[in-house]
C-alpha cells in the first residue's frame, strides 16, 4: 500500500496527496508524512507546484479532522440517547470528568495531536466530537496544528530533497525525541510534586 502510494504520487499528484492526508486523519494506515516529504521533494525538483502541494495536504487534513469530529459528535448523540436507559451513574461521572479535562486542556491536546503526537490525532478528533467540544474552537486549533504538520513535512521534503530517506529519518527521530521528552517532563513534574517537601531541594 505504502509503496503503491509513493509510486503513484508523481502520476496522481495533488488529488492523491489530499486523499492521503484525509485518510490519515481517520486513522487509516497511510504513510502521510512520507508522502508529504516526497511531495516536498517533487516541489524542489519542479515536478509539483509548492502552493498546490501545501494546500492539498492541508485541506485533506482539515477535511479528515472535521469528518472525525462530526462522526464523534453524531455517535455521542446516539450514545446519549441510549445511556439514559442502560448505564448507571458512573458513566455519567466519567463523561463529566472527560469533559472537564477537555475544557481545561482540549486546545493544546488538539493542537499537539496534529503534528507532535500525530498517531493520536484521529482519536482526539472523535473524542472532541463525542465530548461536544465547541466546533469553532476545535477547528481553530486543528487548523493551526495541521499548518504546523504540513509546513514541517513539506518544508523538510523541500530542504532535504536530495535525500528524502534522510529527511524521513530525521523527522522520525525528532518527533520521537520531542514526544518522549514532553512525556518525561510531564511525568517528572508529576513525581516531583508528590515528593515530601524535605526531599524536594536535594534532587
Amino acid at each position, binding site marked *: 500500500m505504502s*509503496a503503491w502510494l*509513493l*509510486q503513484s*504520487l*508523481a*502520476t496522481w*499528484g495533488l488529488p492523491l496527496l489530499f486523499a492521503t492526508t484525509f485518510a490519515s486523519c481517520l486513522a487509516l494506515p497511510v504513510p502521510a508524512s512520507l508522502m508529504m516529504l*516526497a511531495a516536498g*521533494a*517533487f516541489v*524542489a*525538483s*519542479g*515536478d*509539483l507546484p509548492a502552493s498546490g502541494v501545501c494546500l492539498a495536504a492541508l485541506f485533506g487534513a482539515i477535511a479528515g479532522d472535521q469528518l472525525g469530529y462530526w462522526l464523534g459528535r453524531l455517535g455521542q448523540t446516539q450514545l446519549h440517547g441510549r445511556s439514559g436507559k442502560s448505564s448507571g451513574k458512573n458513566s455519567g461521572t466519567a463523561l463529566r470528568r472527560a469533559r472537564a479535562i477537555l475544557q481545561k486542556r482540549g486546545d493544546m491536546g488538539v493542537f499537539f495531536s496534529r503534528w507532535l503526537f500525530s498517531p493520536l490525532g484521529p482519536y482526539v478528533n472523535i473524542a472532541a466530537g463525542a465530548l461536544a467540544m465547541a466546533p469553532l474552537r476545535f477547528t481553530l486549533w486543528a487548523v493551526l496544528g495541521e499548518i504546523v504538520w504540513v509546513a514541517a513535512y513539506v518544508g523538510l521534503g523541500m530542504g532535504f*530533497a*536530495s*535525500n*528524502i*530517506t*534522510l529527511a524521513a*529519518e*530525521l523527522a522520525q*527521530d*525528532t518527533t*520521537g*525525541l520531542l514526544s*518522549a*521528552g514532553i*512525556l*518525561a517532563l510531564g*511525568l*517528572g513534574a*508529576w*513525581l516531583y510534586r*508528590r*515528593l*515530601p517537601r524535605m*526531599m524536594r531541594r*536535594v*534532587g
Partner: protein
Amino acid sequence: MRQIIAHLWQFHRPTLLLFLSALAVMVFFGLRFLWAVFYWSNPVHLHQPPAAWMTPRYVAHSWQVPPQQVAEALQIPAGLPARPTLQDIAKARDLPVDVLLAQLQATLNALQGGLEN
C-alpha cells in the same frame, strides 16, 4: 538522590517506571538522530539511489546533474504523461524496472565523475 528514588519506588512505582521508560526512549531517539547525522554527512550517502517512484527531474535534482542528461540517458519514449516515473518509462520501453534503474545508476556515477573532474 537515593532517598528520592527509594521513596518514588515505594509509593509511585508505575509512574516512576513510565518516567524512566520515557527517558530511555529519549536516549534511543537521540542516539539515532546523531547516528543519522553522522551517516548522512558522508558524501557517498548524500544522493538517493534511483527508485521506481522517482521522476527523471527528481533524480537529476538529487544527484545535481543536468536534467537533460538524465532524460537522454533514460531515452524517454514519446507519449508518456507529464510527470512520468521511472516505472512508467521502464514499462513504455519494455524493460524490467530494475534494469533501467541499474543503467541509470551507472550513468549517474559516470556523470558525477565527469562533473567532479
